[in-house]
């Protein structure tokens, strides 16, 4: 099983590669929309990229909409990942 720390690293790596973001900018308190410059068009691309990387589904629209910062995103992915492990 991968640890929460490893999930954080992987999420940050995906964001850096897929959205051409500077690795230094990827701090937990960075907001996706203001600080990292993503918009609603990117949101779906982000979900698709994360789903693929982690082999899970992010179908809870409310939860994804509630994500403001990279830290929120780390938490959401960890939560989903742990739920998935619990199910298996």
């Amino acid at each position, binding site marked *: 099983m991968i640890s929460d720390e490893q999930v954080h690293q992987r999420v940050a790596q995906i964001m850096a590669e*897929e959205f051409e973001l500077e690795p230094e900018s990827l701090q937990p308190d960075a907001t996706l929309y203001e600080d990292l410059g993503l918009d609603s068009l990117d949101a779906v*691309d982000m*979900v*698709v990229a994360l789903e693929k990387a982690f082999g899970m589904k992010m179908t809870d*629209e409310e939860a994804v909409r509630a994500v403001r910062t990279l830290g929120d995103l780390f938490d959401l992915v960890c939560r989903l990942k742990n739920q998935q492990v619990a199910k298996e």
Partner: protein
Amino acid sequence: MRAEVVVIGSGISGLTVAALLAKRNRQVVVLERNQKPGGALRHFVRRGIPFDIGFHYSGCLGSGKILRVLWEYLGIWIHLRVHPFPSEGNDCLTLRHSGKSVRAFFSYERLEDELQQAFPNEAEGVVTYLKTLRDICDSIPFYNLDLPLTPFLRGLFPPAGIGLAPFLTSLTKDPDLQAVLVSPAFLYGVSPRQASLAVHAMVAHAFISGAYAIDGGGQAIVDAFLSIFRKAGVEVLTGQEVESIIVTDGKVAGVKTSEMEISCSQAIYTGHPADLLDLVPEGTFRQAHCSRLQDLENTTSMFVVFGAVDNPASLRDLTWVNHYAIPSGLDILDVNLICPEESALLMTAPGRRYSDPALSNASRGIILMRPASWDEVAPFSIGAGGTRPASYKKWKSQSADKLLDQAKKLWGYSRIEPLAIGSPLTFRDKLGVPGGAVYGVRHCLNQYNPGAKTRLPGLWLSGQGTLMTGIVGASLSGLVTAGEIEGLEPLWDEVRQCR
């Protein structure tokens, strides 16, 4: 050359978005790679018999229904002779294993009666299924025209929600009834195990609410658009494959074909979304978006025999009845079941549905289809566009014989002469879809189809890969793209006034 808007592709989505923008006084040019406009709606003629490729029947053409409303708004409707299937018309579904036949009528009341009679122990499941379809569609603006468009389109996650398979298996354990209820999947090309209940509802509901034929088939629709284009000054240039989209200062500045360059501030691309990546300069989209477009999964392909009988009267029974043979359970599009003895099959004769009896009675054309997988033709695919190996011809004719043999065994049609054959290779090359996917990109669970907006200012998407597939879906994708450019709700209000 110069235009305000260039539409790339002249299928029903491109024609629709061009017509809508022209009505808003935009100066529009449509570019089409093929020699003739119409995309999947084109017909072709063999021995004097016209055959439709991508139009056999459609829903949403009754009074107050969306496609009719849209065509009335555009002035297309008056050019067409559209007529409903009579009340006896149906999709006659023969279950492969039990041999049982069920008539899927194009009316909720009649369909419910038929299903109750055929499956007397499953009354509750039948009622729940039909009610669920209606309830879902009642919350979708294209079926309930009182609703605004924006909230429906802005949902982030159309693929979320319930799968068709778990829903159906919760309703009934009867594999024959399951097969009957999943059968509309044939019309959007997604295996029921991957299908979403909402997408299924949209397609099934459209047909259960009424099926329609059009004199002259899909070609008549294309011709109707071309005739309004002549008045509106829309140019359609064929034999023009767009090879690149010109970007200046971070926005669309024009498009380039091998022969010409057109400057424009807006370009609307209606082909397969994955192929768009070859048209834009590198770096236009971020990696995440490129991967998403590249990884889109496609619908099933089909193997199609376009044939003819000597005696047109022998096709009389087929006029208002489409014959389907379907495997039980949820396997209607299972690619492991592509051998025609087991797979789903459709036999139809759309040419017999002309309102002029002289024409319909004389019509000898018949179309047979089964799901097909790319793997069947992969060995012959070398040298795409060029000459195919001789073994391909042999495979085609053997496969056609097997299909004809099935038509004989199932329905007694013994003397059908094959005049043309469509395989996954044909559809890949003629329709420009990867794998010969007859309905383009899948609309299913867990797949996020792209919307009309793109990251590049001035570039828009439309077509069956975006909003929805089929004549209705692709037309509505044209409406949505025009709406995104011109303002969604104002355009929606104008269109709805034609109810």
